[in-house]
């Protein structure tokens, strides 16, 4: 059962991809998120180290306070503040006159966990709305006996291949192809052709 007609689904995917760039200033993609959770300990360690480095508003405020206290203690109470980075961070980054957007910093791991949880929540809502997969369980029926092993092996190929080509159906197939990026167009053509070939061979073997 389909809830969304193809044009509505296509439009919603496009709005999600373009909106994600405009709001987050990061290209929408999923395999990069998976890659982070494949190395979750390393990612957490990197975040801890980054938070210890003196960046961010809190660290900046602390540094300013410390510098002010020193200046007062040293008796050199001169107005040297305008050169501080606080002035530049307080100013709006993009004026309304539409300056080109720069690539933003990557989201913290918590943000990407929320993204994946959102994906699952979307699936749950769709199911609650009544659009379930095949009654017998589409996945269990998909590969027949040993389906879990097939799914795990297929997942392995998805994870390795997606990381190797640097994107997935979302990152290359939609975000990259929409921008006519050569790497994305080639990757999408090759993975669609391979998937069609393998699916046809598998389908022929099964029927």
């Amino acid at each position, binding site marked *: 059962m389909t809830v969304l007609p193809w044009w509505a689904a296509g439009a919603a995917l496009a709005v999600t991809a373009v909106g994600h760039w405009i709001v987050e200033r990061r290209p929408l993609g999923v395999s990069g998120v998976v890659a982070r959770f494949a190395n979750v300990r390393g990612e957490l360690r990197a975040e801890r180290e980054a938070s210890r480095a003196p960046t961010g508003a809190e660290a900046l405020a602390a540094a300013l306070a410390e510098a002010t206290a020193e200046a007062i203690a040293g008796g050199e109470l001169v107005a040297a503040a305008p050169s501080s980075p606080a002035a530049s961070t307080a100013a709006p980054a993009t004026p309304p006159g539409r300056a080109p957007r720069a690539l933003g910093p990557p989201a913290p791991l918590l943000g990407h966990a929320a993204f994946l949880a959102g994906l699952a929540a979307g699936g749950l809502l769709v199911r609650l709305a009544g659009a379930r997969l095949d009654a017998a369980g589409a996945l269990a029926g*998909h590969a027949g006996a040993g389906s879990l092993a097939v799914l795990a092996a297929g997942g*392995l190929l998805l994870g390795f291949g997606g990381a190797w080509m640097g994107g997935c159906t979302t990152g290359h197939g939609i975000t990259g192809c929409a921008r006519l990026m050569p790497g994305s167009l080639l990757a999408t053509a090759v993975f669609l052709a391979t*998937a069609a070939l393998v699916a046809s061979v598998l389908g022929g073997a099964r029927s």
Partner: protein
Amino acid sequence: MTAAPPARGRALRLAAFGLALGLVLGGSRLADPAFVEAMLTLGRAPGAAPGDALRAWATLACAAGLAGLGFALLARGDALPPRPIRRGTVPGAVLFGAGWALTGTCPAAAFVQLGQGELAALATVAGMLAGSRLHRLARARLGLDGTGCAGA
């Protein structure tokens, strides 16, 4: 933006984007392996409903076309990262395509399936995490290129 720490606001926004993507993938059946199989076999898969394959291809083409229009109109001149052809583009895509056919699932769809109550998708997710980790090892040991896409 005002009182809440920026990390929490960003997590909420990313959750909303994930929710939107999950709703579309679930609602359009692009997270349904039977639908994907119909698409990949051009409707020749056993049990494929007539029109399924066309509907799936039309959805993807519509998405890429309208996103292209959106990027051209709303993001011209922006510093979106380039996606050049690299050494890993073709071999990675071959492996990825084979995985897509085996599972009937792309990486985003696996998480949508979990939400739909398909516990078997845990196997797909575990495989993806292991595959991505293996790639990381291979990149360090064998000098393969590639990473995930710049990411959400």
